[in-house]
């Protein structure tokens, strides 16, 4: 992705990588294939086929990207630890295999490589995934229920907690943009005035939505992308997949372009014994749009500052207006 610092070639990476894999998989291993996959903005993802005495393992190496990790993002080491804890709690995650330390100067970890569709637009549209879409809402509720039951003391490195903390972080990020964004200010003012009192605090995935799930023909395979894990109000996580950007064009299905909210919320409440209301989801959906509007502007600054030159990040700065418009639309409805 980065023009300023092109990704390493597989051959440069593989020598150090093999050394780091020996303590995990033993000395009798060989890298059969190593290829850079489509990845997020700040991380590299490498598909690794590793020959071991037990046969070839299909693995994924997550490695830090070029930019400085931004506020609220877990280090690769903490992300790996969170994956381990989530796996132990029965959450469907790609099984973590080990933290690798720095490989050619950047931290990385290795996990199982899972199959399934991850592209949001395909998940909401493809006819062969219709059966999956029918069961996904309940399955998302089930995974969220398991994640929110993870004992916080197992993951003491997670920051966050409460609506006021989320809004404080967002305000801080807005203040780091050099120009003013009155639509975002209006949303922040609305959200501050209605922030729920801090009550229950749980472990949150932080980015569970269509697009961060591996989906197979039968439904939810695995929950991916744990780098935004933090602690907070459970409704923050439950409302996040409602945000319009994550409906991938199927706007009328408020839950991620795949289903209605009510059955999903009922399933979540039944599993957890919580009583999250639709009104609470309305609140956190507005906060979610704020988060992603500010996130898009912040990402574009990575390009503008030269930290990570990328046409994708540059255009994201203009697309923040989509989230601003949705935010204002929701504020009009809430008024």
């Amino acid at each position, binding site marked *: 992705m980065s023009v300023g610092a092109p990704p390493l070639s597989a051959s440069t990476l593989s020598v150090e990588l093999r050394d780091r894999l020996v303590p995990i998989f033993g000395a009798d291993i060989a890298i059969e294939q190593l290829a850079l996959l489509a990845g997020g903005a700040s991380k590299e993802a490498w598909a690794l086929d590793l020959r071991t005495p037990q046969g070839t393992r299909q693995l994924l190496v997550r490695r830090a990207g070029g930019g400085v990790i931004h506020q609220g993002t877990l280090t690769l080491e903490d992300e790996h630890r969170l994956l381990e804890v989530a796996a132990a709690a029965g959450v469907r995650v790609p099984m973590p295999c080990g933290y690798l330390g720095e490989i050619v100067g950047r931290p990385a970890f290795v996990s199982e490589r899972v199959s399934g569709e991850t592209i949001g637009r395909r998940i909401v549209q493809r006819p062969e995934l219709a059966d999956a879409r029918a069961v996904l809402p309940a399955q998302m509720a089930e995974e969220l229920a398991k994640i929110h039951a993870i004992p916080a003391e197992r993951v003491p490195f997670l920051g966050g907690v409460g609506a006021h903390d989320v809004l404080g972080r967002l305000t801080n990020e807005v203040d780091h943009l050099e120009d*003013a964004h*009155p639509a975002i200010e209006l949303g922040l003012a609305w959200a501050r005035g209605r922030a729920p009192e801090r009550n229950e605090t749980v472990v949150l995935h932080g980015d569970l939505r269509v697009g961060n799930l591996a989906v197979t023909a039968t439904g939810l395979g695995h929950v991916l992308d744990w780098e935004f894990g933090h602690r907070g109000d459970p409704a923050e996580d439950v409302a996040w997949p409602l945000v319009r950007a994550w409906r991938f064009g199927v706007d009328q299905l408020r839950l991620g372009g795949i289903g209605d909210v009510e059955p999903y919320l009922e399933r979540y409440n039944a599993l957890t014994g919580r009583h999250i209301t639709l009104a609470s989801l309305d609140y956190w959906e507005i906060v979610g749009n704020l988060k992603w509007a500010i996130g898009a502007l912040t990402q574009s600054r990575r390009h503008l500052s030269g930290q990570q030159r990328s046409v994708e990040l540059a*255009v994201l700065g203009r697309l923040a207006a989509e989230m601003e418009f949705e935010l204002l639309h929701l504020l009009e409805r809430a008024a």
Partner: protein
Amino acid sequence: MQDRPDAAELAQAVREFIETEVLPGIDDPRLRFRTLVAANGLGILEREIALGAPLVRREVGSLARLLGHADPLPDDPGELRRRAVDLNRELAQRIRAGDTPEGALAHLVATVADKLRIASPRYLERYR
């Protein structure tokens, strides 16, 4: 004065080249996606060249009314943009201070819709 193609026509020529000659030959999905993003970026540029100036004027006029400024709008495009930056900062500060002017929401809906007319017109149509 430059000869034709003008700025919009030049952006369009590059976008059409990307869409018709470059894209069909790209198999790598990551490169394909970024190439589509690049073509979209040129589309934004074309629309900004065509529509940008009057929309900035409209935004500054609306901001001035909202904030109670009576001074005439500058004619110089650079001056007008600086005025837009200043007035947006003033509006943001007033909202932050709890002094949101009456009509701010309606102003912002209209202004952000104008931003989308350049940045993402098809997204705007999804609200009709």
